[in-house]
């Protein structure tokens, strides 16, 4: 990640990178237009969204029941289920399973859960090389970078940057052009050998069906099919919130996800597997069920809905803040509006991610596109309240609290309010010119006057005019 920085500081740096902003603007606008077009094709879209929301809400309210059912179904089908309280436990489990398979390398499908727990680094420390096989994840891995978007992790890089990276770091790609097709071909040649030789595949899961024990991975390139089909051993790491009760629920989710994420009617490949199939694909399957802070999120009845997220990234693509700053400014695996409500909760409302609930203008664009109806602005406000309430941790400037309390006192009395109006008028008089204050003001108004003039209070308030009328 980008170090322990709070959002405003990290954003300032990102805003200074004009190439980044141009890349982000182009990408987010392209994908949001595509989404809008395919969503408009579906007459019953709002009913589908409501179904998605209701499925997720009901599942979370009985999560223990569904997890136990999933465990039973997977086990019945020849899979092995592991539980992990935190990242360290999950990483240790995966490393042990790789060692037991006698492998030193694994091929990986793009997975946020494994990014979140830092699996690749943990495996490296155990002498195991993890090859990212999604094109964007490969770009990020080769550049020793971190993903900046949930769906298109290298959205912050343009073709020229990627071509330069491949020429420098990808075996056999010294002369590659910056055409996306040529870059994809170079990645194909490099990765095919890895796929054909891999003994262990590692994946995340988009969904897992409790009733049948079926795990679902949704992807486009075919690398997901390669990783979940060709190796002898498959290890899937999934957050406990990814379980859904039934195949009917999967039918709803598979209508919501592709249109919301890539703006396609359906993504090229959706793989569903149920334990181990004799003579078809991996003959050993391990499912690691990961908590790593999710039960803390579950414990907040309002914040819980952050767990409904199906990682489509539609909220990132419409967010005016994300569009300007990109994903790295959020300092977490989960950026954008969903990250602003999920990341601080996963971190137990501690550390720099407590600045994320304020990384929003509450414009509401995210709530309008969320395919499972998460009230992101409502949760942002709720989490702001939680951070303010834990005043002792110092996540809120002391001056802000004093100012807010003073303002609340002023607004609580008509007499004090009217006195404050007069005081503001008198105080502004020496600063104002032509009805405007152009000075860079100190204190809380410094942020305002860095780029905007402030109107000077006029000679008469509205209520003074009303009384004199």
């Amino acid at each position, binding site marked *: 990640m980008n170090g322990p920085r709070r*959002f*405003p500081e990290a*954003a*300032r740096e990102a*805003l200074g990178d004009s190439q980044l*902003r141009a890349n982000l603007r182009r990408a987010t606008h392209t994908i949001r237009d595509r989404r809008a077009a395919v969503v408009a094709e579906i007459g019953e879209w709002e009913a589908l969204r409501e179904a998605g929301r209701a499925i997720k809400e009901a599942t979370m309210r009985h999560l223990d029941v569904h997890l136990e059912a999933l465990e039973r179904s997977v086990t019945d089908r020849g899979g092995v289920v592991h539980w992990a309280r935190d990242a360290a436990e999950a990483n240790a489990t995966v490393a042990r399973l790789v060692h037991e398979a006698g492998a030193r390398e694994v091929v990986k499908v793009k997975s946020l859960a494994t990014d979140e727990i830092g699996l690749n680094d943990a495996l490296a420390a155990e002498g195991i090389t993890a090859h990212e096989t999604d094109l964007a994840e490969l770009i990020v891995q080769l550049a020793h970078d971190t993903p900046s978007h949930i769906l298109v992790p290298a959205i912050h890089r343009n073709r020229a940057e990627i071509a330069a990276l491949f020429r420098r770091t990808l075996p056999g790609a010294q002369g590659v052009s910056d055409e996306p097709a040529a870059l994809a071909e170079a990645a194909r040649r490099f990765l095919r050998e890895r796929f054909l030789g891999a003994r262990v595949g590692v994946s995340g899961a988009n969904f897992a069906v409790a009733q049948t024990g079926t795990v679902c991975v949704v992807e486009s390139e075919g690398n997901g099919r390669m990783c979940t089909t060709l190796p002898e051993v498959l290890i899937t790491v999934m957050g406990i919130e990814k379980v859904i009760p039934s195949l009917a629920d999967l039918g709803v989710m598979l209508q919501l996800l592709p249109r919301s994420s890539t703006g396609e009617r359906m993504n090229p490949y959706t793989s569903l597997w149920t334990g181990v199939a004799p003579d078809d694909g991996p003959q050993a399957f391990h499912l690691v069920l990961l908590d790593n802070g999710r039960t803390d999120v579950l414990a907040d009845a309002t914040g819980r809905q952050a767990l409904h997220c199906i990682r489509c990234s539609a909220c990132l693509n419409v967010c*005016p*803040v994300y569009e*300007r*700053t990109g994903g790295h400014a959020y300092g977490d695996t989960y950026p954008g509006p969903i990250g602003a409500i999920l990341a601080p909760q996963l971190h137990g409302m501690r550390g720099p991610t407590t600045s994320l*609930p*304020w*990384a*929003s*203008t*509450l*414009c*509401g*664009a995210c*709530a*309008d596109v969320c395919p499972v109806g998460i009230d992101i602005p409502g949760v942002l*406000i709720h989490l*702001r*309240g*939680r951070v*303010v309430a834990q005043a002792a941790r110092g996540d*809120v400037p002391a001056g802000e609290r004093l100012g*807010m*309390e003073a*303002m*609340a006192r*002023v*607004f*609580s*009395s*008509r007499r004090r*309010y009217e006195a404050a*109006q007069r005081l503001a008028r008198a105080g502004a008089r020496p600063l104002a010119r032509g009805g405007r204050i*152009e000075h860079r003001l100190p204190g*809380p*108004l*410094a*942020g*305002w006057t*860095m*780029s*905007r*003039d*402030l*109107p000077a*209070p*006029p000679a*008469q*308030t*509205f*209520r*003074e*005019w*009303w*009384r004199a009328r």
Partner: protein
Amino acid sequence: MRVALFITCLADTLFPEVGRATVTVLERLGHEVVFPEEQTCCGQMHANTGYRAESVPLVRRFARAFEGAGADAIVCPSGSCTAMVRDQYAGLAAASGDAGLEASVTALVPRVFELSQFLVGELGVEDVGAAFPHRVTYHPTCHSLRLLRVGDAPLRLLRAVRGIDLVELGEAEACCGFGGTFAVKNADTSTAMLTDKLQHVLATGAEVCTAADSSCLMHLGGGLSRRRAGVRTMHLAEILAAT
């Protein structure tokens, strides 16, 4: 109809012309306007910044101020402050554990309207008899658009203004970057959003940029003024009041 004006603390203190214009428009349409003087601030800044406890007394004050006004409707020239009352008051009142407050909020909330919503949706009026022979562009503010769902009500009102040259704003539905305390807590990001929005405003060649929220207009106007752009901001009510 007897209409109580919910002016908002911002317009009361900094933009009294918006309040005067709102009164002008409502009276021109034949309605009686009252102004409950006990009103101060709706509490949005506190609630949205995380100071929920501090906002509850302001909810109570609002309820007391308006409940005695005997008004058929409470009208406000701000989409954002109207949305605060309509979307958040019920929850704040319920969480306060004060059953009396909950009851008065439940009774009041359905009668609170943003100005354009009231004129077009409730009164069915689009032509308010205004004339404004200038080139104007309209910025739909986020809370009007996505919380109140006022739709094209402000545009319908503007299209009926005589002499107006209404030009479409590029990427109109993008947030201007104000966002309440966001503008100071994340000043750099707010400024970047403002810069993009102002480019679209300037590209229209409009003399006036209008909206239905004094807060977003203060942000846009402050940016235009800092750039000496020569474009004015005016609240929708001011254009509707002009003859």
